[in-house]
């Protein structure tokens, strides 16, 4: 057990836990931020995607001891108080069915648009292929990313 202070969504959070505990379980069960989802635990499904210093990362594979000073952003941190354009697009086009994978999908999409504000369809589907949606919302995800690029034209990323 060790004590850690991490920067989560712009705020410092201190707690004690096992040094090998993955960031996913720290977020969900130590800090009670359950927007980041458990899907596979082996970095395959993308439900646990978060941003670590601006990079999209699978939190289920990252031990808390490796986080250090990095700034962590989760689904709870991107659209408060106003929804992020990606969240707006997701809501507008009614992307979710069950909704469980969508936190991870949204975090991947936000990262994609930070890297490439005007991706082609192939670039969208390639990047978004890291996130499994079992309900089959893939077509709407692609359309929502495209809509988000339009919303972003007049609205710089935070």
């Amino acid at each position, binding site marked *: 057990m060790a004590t850690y202070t991490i920067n989560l969504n712009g705020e410092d959070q201190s707690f004690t836990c096992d040094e090998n505990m993955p960031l996913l379980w720290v977020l969900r*069960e130590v800090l009670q931020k359950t927007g980041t989802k458990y899907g*596979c635990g082996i970095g395959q499904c993308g439900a646990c995607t978060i941003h670590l210093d601006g990079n999209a990362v699978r939190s289920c594979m990252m031990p808390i001891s490796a986080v250090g000073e990095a700034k962590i952003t989760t689904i709870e941190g991107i*659209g*408060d108080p106003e929804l992020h354009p990606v969240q707006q697009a997701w809501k507008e086009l009614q992307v979710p069915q069950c909704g*469980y994978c969508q936190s991870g999908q949204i975090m991947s999409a936000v990262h994609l648009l930070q890297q490439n504000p005007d991706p082609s369809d192939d670039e969208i589907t390639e990047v978004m292929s890291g996130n499994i949606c079992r309900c*089959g919302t893939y077509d709407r995800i692609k359309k929502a990313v495209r809509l988000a690029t339009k919303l972003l034209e007049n609205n710089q990323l935070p």
Partner: protein
Amino acid sequence: MTLVKTKIGRRAFIRNTGLASGGLVIGFSWLASCKMTPEQVNSLPDEWFELNGFLKVGDNGMVTIMSPNPEIGQNVKTSMPMIVAEELDIAWKDVLVEQAPLNTDIFTRQLAGGSQSIRQGWESLRMAGATARHMLKEAAAQAWDVSVDEITTKDGVLTHEASGNSAGYGEMASAATSIEVPEEVQLKDNGSFSIIGTDKKNVDGKKIVTGKPLFGLDVYKEGMLTAMIVHPPAFGVKFKSMNAESVKSMPGIKDVFHFEAYPEDVEKQWSDGGAIPELVAIVGNSTWECMQAKKALNVEWEEVSKLESTSYHDEALASLLEKPQEEPARKDGDVDAAFKKAAKIVESTYSAPYLAHNTMEPMNFFAHVTPEKAELLGPIQTPEFLEQTLVSRLGMPAEKIDVMMTRMGGGFGRRLYGTFAVEAAAISQKMNAPVKLVYSREDDMTQGTYRPSYKVKYKAGLDENGNLIAWHVRGAGTNDDLIFENRFPAGAVDNYLAEKHSLETNVTTGAWRAPRSNFIAGAEQAFMDEVAEAAGKDPLEFRLELFDRAINNPVGDPEKNDYDPERYAGVLKLVKEKSNWDTETGESRGVAAYYCHNSYVAQVLELENGGGDMPRVNKVTCAVDCGIVINPLAAKNQIEGGIIDGIGHSMYSALTFEAGKPEQSNFDTYRLMRNSEAPKNIEVFFVDNGIDPTGLGEPSLPPAIAALSNALYKTKGRRFYKQPFINDKPPLVG
């Protein structure tokens, strides 16, 4: 307007004045803890008046509608309240929706399955809204001393034109609670809807995209422990022994014990299919600590029945296909005689593997069982059956058991089988503490209730003019006999024989999105293309000819056929028009139509030419007849999802066994379709016929597999008989 008797349970009309007095609000603490938006808080009323179990009207005109059925992503939490709101005649913006707990006194069929929520809820939901509207009108009529028949309603406002009186529902809500429940009420005409048939966004949409705690796995309660189970690693073995002592002292671990989840004397429901009698429980402070203990724990298992492998299932199913059924499931005419005189005969065998459900949210449930009561909260498609099993398992009357539903991270049939909730309750009872049971992905994928493995053999005979004169189908599945003998083309062929077998195995199976149809449609509609080709006919026209036969001169008793040939042909004609079937003669298109779960779906699927092993789907054009469409925005989402699900699983997915053990346990070995492999475009069209609505969760999946298979034939020049198609390679030559 239609006058109907108010048939919903009379106990749905036990009325309460004020928020706190209703039994319905008890037990909502967790679900209600999701904060409302500022706009909603500002507009909350001072007092609620419950007019029946489905709805309460606030003094400011806001209305809360209870959504009775479990939400698995099929969007019933929006579409079912829309139906109540329609008949209540309230503006949708003034509606708040709450998930109802299990309450069999008020609601009927609180179950998510068989695409039946809307179809079977249609009448009672309308009645609940119409009855409340009538009571509000009566209250206004008494207040204004006018005839109730002269009062009109619109968007939550009551108006009496002659006297110039007008009032919002909120102003009459208190008085309406003392109006007698009418014996019969008027429903709106199907053509006069203002909410039904319009796009309404998911009532939980904002909470989903902002990551609010909506799902079972997100449940947290003070003092709660986390539990995981260790289940037998193979079908055919059971618990023998373990050495738990060293594991018990691991960090954060409270207890490790062997337990009987289902002792022999438990009265099981069908929803306990796949129940594993004996398990090991690991209970601790957190999921991750339980996972570490699970890794360290050494359990010995003993063989109790045959350890089956996929090669065994394949061989045993294949040998069943050689065996006639003693009493055929259906027999019209004489197929043997017809085959003898046929000008052409076509024969093919199709097969598919086991599939796991793989909901993105693994199985989990919260349970707090004390000697006085049991509180259950989590993702479950069958809360009522769960409660019945708990009565027997916990030895407690139903009145002491509260079952509440969270939103579900997918169901696809897996959460019909609530064995995980029974396990959670048993562990909580033993620990005498609140417990959340969590399955790892590996637990979830290797635990059973799979889509069965199937094989089916078809033989068709054509006369010299290319007319279908004989059809013989013989199918077999693991623990499931597969064939729907009265579905198409039964009734459209003079000589018809349907036979079916089930192979008993110890690998547990269950309903998986569009049970049986999820395989048999792909086989039947692919074979239909082979037969059409042999007949030298366009595959779509060939199908329409058969439906003409079933409409004009059906074989056998038409009542026996469980489809309506006119509606079936209708979706084919619509997809023919919308896909420009006649004018665009692309080489790589496939068509299929199927009827299941009371809805009709036809699709034309177009593949890109070239590509690697599996060409990408350019476009799917889909025609649907589900009667009245409640919420087109969400309805299309269901159709798109079903199509992607069908294509994805038939192309890529399989669960195989070696010595009783599932060979895939996570997404590194079990392949699910990814975004880059999904169709580039899907267009959905609905038949507009005003017929009472039927379901959409399942019917679009089955035909997608056949449309894909038929299009693959066009690009690859060979038929695909074995799912997953990615593994169906041509034999090496030379």
